[in-house]
C-alpha cells in the first residue's frame, strides 16, 4: 500500500503506522499514538486521548458511506485535533477535494494505484461555496 498526501502536511510513513482500535486504546492507552475509528464511532470518544495521538485512521466500507467526512471534520472542529487524519477503504479520487476540505491528510491506496487522477481532482476546483475546516 502507499499513501497519497492531500494536505502536504508532514505525514507518518505507511509502514510505521500501527493503529489500535478504540477499544484497545481505552484498555491500554499507555503507548498508543495511532488509532483507527470505525464509521459508527464518534470523534468525541477520542477526546481523553488526543494529547498523545498523532494519527487517526478513518474507514470507508464503501465510497458512498460518507460518515468519515463528519468524523474528520468533527476531529478538527470540535476536538481541535492537529495530528494526521488518514482514510482507508473504498475511496474514489473524485472525493479528493471533499476529503481534504473536511480535514483529511492522507489516503491509503493500493500499490498499483495511479495517482494522477488524485492529483488532478485535488486541483480541479478553484471555487467553493462554503467555508471549511481546511480550504
Amino acid at each position, binding site marked *: 500500500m502507499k499513501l497519497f498526501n492531500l494536505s502536504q502536511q508532514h505525514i507518518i510513513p505507511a509502514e510505521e503506522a500501527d493503529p489500535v482500535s478504540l477499544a484497545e486504546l481505552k484498555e491500554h492507552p499507555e503507548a498508543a499514538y495511532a488509532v483507527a475509528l470505525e464509521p459508527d464511532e464518534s470523534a468525541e470518544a477520542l477526546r481523553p486521548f488526543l494529547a498523545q495521538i498523532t494519527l487517526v485512521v478513518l474507514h470507508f466500507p464503501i465510497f*458512498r458511506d460518507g*460518515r468519515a467526512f*463528519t468524523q474528520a471534520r*468533527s476531529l478538527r*472542529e470540535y476536538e481541535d485535533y492537529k495530528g494526521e487524519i488518514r482514510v482507508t477503504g473504498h475511496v474514489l479520487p473524485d472525493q479528493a477535494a471533499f*476529503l481534504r*476540505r473536511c480535514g483529511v491528510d492522507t489516503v491509503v491506496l493500493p500499490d498499483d494505484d495511479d495517482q494522477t487522477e488524485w492529483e488532478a481532482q485535488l486541483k*480541479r*476546483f478553484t471555487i*467553493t461555496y462554503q467555508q471549511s475546516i481546511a480550504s
Partner: protein
Amino acid sequence: MKQPVGHYAYESRDREFLQERIAEFEDQVKRRLSGALSEEEFKPLRLMNGIYLQVHAYMLRVAIPYGILDSRQLRKLAHVARRYDRGYGHFTTRQNIQFNWISLEDAPAILRDLAEADMHAIQTSGNCIRNITSDEYAGAARDELMDPRVHAEILRQWSTLHPEFTFLPRKFKIAISGSPEDRVAARFHDIGLLARPSENGPLFRVFVGGGLGRTPVVGQELFDSVPEAELLATLEATLRVYNAYGRRDNLYRARIKILVQTIGIEPFREAVKAELAKMDLSHYRLTPERVAAIRARFAAPELHAVDDADAVLAQHQKEDPAFARWMQSNTHPHFDEGYSIATVSLKTPGDIPGDVTAEQMDGLADIAERFAFSELRVTHLQNIVLGHVRKDQLYALWQGLKELNLAAPNIGLAGDIVSCPGLDYCTLANARSLPLARKLGARFGDARLQEEIGALSINISGCINACGHHHAGHIGILGVDKRGSEFYQILLGGQAGDRASIGAILGPALSEDDAVAAIARMIDHYLAHRNEQESFLEMVTRLGKAPFKEVAYETV
C-alpha cells in the same frame, strides 16, 4: 446584461465553477467509457450531475433553482430538447425538467450548452442535498410575508458540492416558503422552512423529517424561530446529526424521517442543539451584508400599473366567456392591485401532464418576455406561473397561450392532474401512470364540468416512491404490480399545505379502466350529495371514506 427578475444573476466565479464542474464530469465520463470506473462507481457520480439510466436511454434532469427560469434559459432548454432529445421535456414535481432520450456521450456538451445560460444539473439526484424548491408565487402573492428566494439562493450556494454532505445516507430535500399558506408542502420535506419577517430580521420556522415515498410522514417542528444569522448553522447541525446517525444498512430506512421517528423529535432536537453548542456560531453566521450582497443580484420587477386596468380586464371578460373562465381558475391575486399572477396549465386535456415541446418552450419564453419581465416559475404541480402580469394585458397573454395550446382553464381543478412518468419511462415503476392521467384528463376535460366540480387534486404515482405525491392528493392513485399486471390503488383525503394529511387507501387495487370509472362515480356522488359550497375534500372530511368506498366499488 440586465439582471434577471426573480433569480440570482451569476457572477464570473459562478460561471468558472460550472466550467470546472463540467470538466470534472467530462473526465468522469471518459473514465467510465474507458472502463476505469465501474458502473457501480460511476452511478453516484453521474447522479450528482443529474444523469440517470432510465428505461429507454439516459435521462438528464436539469436543476431549476427555486423553480425560477428566465426566457433566455427556457430557450436554452428548448435548444437542448431539439438538439439532443426528441423535441420535448418533462417538468417534474420537484421544479426540475427532465429529458428522456439523452446519450451519455452528449452529456458534457449539453451541460456546456446549459452553462451558457447559467444552468446546470448539479445535485438533481444522488444522496446529497437536492435542488432547493420554493413557492411559485414568491415575490408576487398578496398573502406573502417575505420573498424566500434570496434565502433559497443562499441555501443553493451553501449546499453546492458541500464537502461533508455529498455522500449522505440518502437524498435530502429542502423547501422554503415565505407565505403562511405553505405552498411548498414544507411538512413533506426532509427540511421545510417557513420564513417570516420580524423587527430583528427574518425568522425561520423549521420542520424536519417529513416526506412521502414508501413511509409517508408529516414533518415535525424542529425550531419555531431560527434567526437569519443562525440559519446556516442550524442546517449544518441538522445535517451533521443525520450524516452520522442516519441508517445506511437499509435503503428504505435511510431518510432523515426514519431517524427522527426512531429516536423521537425531542431527542433529535437535543442532538441538533448539542451540535450547535459545539460549533463556533460566529464562523457560520449568515450576516446581513452577505444577504444584502445576494439580494443585490436579484432584480425586482418595475411595476407600472395603468389606471383603467380593471375596467379593461372586466370588458375583456365580458366579451369572451372562455377568457373569463380561464381568469377564474388560472389567476391569483398579486400584491399590486394593477397586476395578476397567471398560471399556465401544462395539463391540456388528453396530453401528458408536464410535457412541453420545444416550440411551446420558445413560445412561452416570448410570452414571458412580453408580459412578465421574462420570468417564469415552474411549480411542484407541474405548471408554469408568470408572476407579474398587468391586468389589462391578461387577455393578450391568454390569446398567446391559446395559440400554444396552453390555455386550459383548469388550475386547481380536476384536470390539473399531477403525474410521475411511470412505467413508460421510469425503471422503478410498477405500473404506467401517464395513460391513466390522460384518460382522467380527458374524462374531466370539459371546462364547465370542472368548474362545477370545483377544487380537486388528483395525484398519480407509478410506484411507492411517490414522485407523483399520491398521498398528498385529494384523490391519490398508486400503481401496483399484481402478478405481472398493472393495478391501481386509490387513496382519498390527502392534502399538502398547513393542514397536511396523508390520504387513506380506499380498498383493493383496480384495473386502469375500473379505476377511472370508480373515480368518476366518486365525483358523481360528491356532485349529487354535497352541501352547498362544500368542496370535495370538505365532504370527504365530513363523511369519511365509507360512502366513497361504497360507490367506488359498487360494480366490482
